[in-house]
């Protein structure tokens, strides 16, 4: 299925979590990898249950708690990489890498209360840093072309458009050199 093109150049080596920073609203935000606990899962359910449906992208997050739980169970699986931005014990944002053949699909969501505060950029960099130290080589995503804020964010961290032919833009980034045997 994959005939996606990825840049030959490796993206900047962003720092892996844990890390913390002060956002533009003076809140202290901590970014940590998901610890696999039920408590953190429940905090995520709460964030997505309160998520503004107008910020949904291609059907996710789903709109009902049972569907949110099904979806989260799938992407919080141990072969996925998940990073959460915390304001105390409240989830401000969540970013995830889900395996897809030899690459990973990325998605990121920042709760409406925490948008436009610089959290998305820090969160996605932390996720890419986490991916890099976990051996992820290639990452792709799709984004609605009208969503300029998101497209801008992805470009800022190094994503390049790989397919502009469909309703959604497809963008890709390379986090590591290909292994030698594939190098050719």
């Amino acid at each position: 299925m994959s005939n996606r093109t990825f840049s030959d150049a490796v993206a900047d080596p962003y720092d892996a979590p844990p890390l913390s920073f002060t956002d533009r609203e003076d809140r202290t935000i901590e970014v940590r990898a998901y610890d696999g606990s039920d408590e953190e899962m429940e905090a995520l359910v709460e964030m997505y249950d309160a998520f503004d449906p107008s910020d949904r992208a291609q059907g996710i997050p789903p709109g009902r708690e049972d569907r949110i739980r099904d979806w989260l169970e799938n992407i919080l699986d141990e072969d996925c990489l998940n990073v959460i931005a915390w304001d105390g014990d409240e989830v401000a944002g969540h970013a995830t890498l889900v395996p897809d053949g030899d690459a990973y699909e990325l998605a990121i969501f920042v709760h409406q209360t925490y948008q436009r505060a610089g959290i998305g950029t820090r969160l996605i960099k932390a996720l890419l840093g986490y991916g890099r130290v976990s051996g992820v080589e290639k990452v792709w995503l799709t984004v609605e072309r009208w969503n300029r804020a998101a497209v801008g964010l992805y470009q800022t961290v190094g994503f390049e458009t790989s397919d502009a032919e469909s309703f959604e833009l497809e963008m890709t980034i390379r986090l590591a050199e290909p292994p030698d045997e594939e190098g050719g």
Partner: protein
Amino acid sequence: MKVLLGIGGSDDSIRALEKTVERTANVGDDLTVAIVDNPAGERSREDIETRVTELLDERGVDAPVRLLDGDPGSSLVDLAENEGFDQLVLGGGETSPMGKIQIGNIAEFVLLNSHVTVTLVR
């Protein structure tokens, strides 16, 4: 209602087939099934045709099956418009590993070009 179901070999097509035949059996629509050449599909035309016939027999639905050649999107739109169909039904897209809905090229073309009402089955 005169319904044209357009399917290729992708999973969402098969789901659309099952749901549409079910609905036809319940409400008695006048259904035609058109099989198109979807290069992105994983099943051969023969396999799809067999599946269609099986399902129609199972549910006791009498519907002609047509094989369409050439560009799938435009041949479906042509058929729907020229033969007076009320509705053109298609698969509603695949989901990515993340769970994002991705609309295929055929559905995209049909949505933007059809003057007949389009239904995407989810």
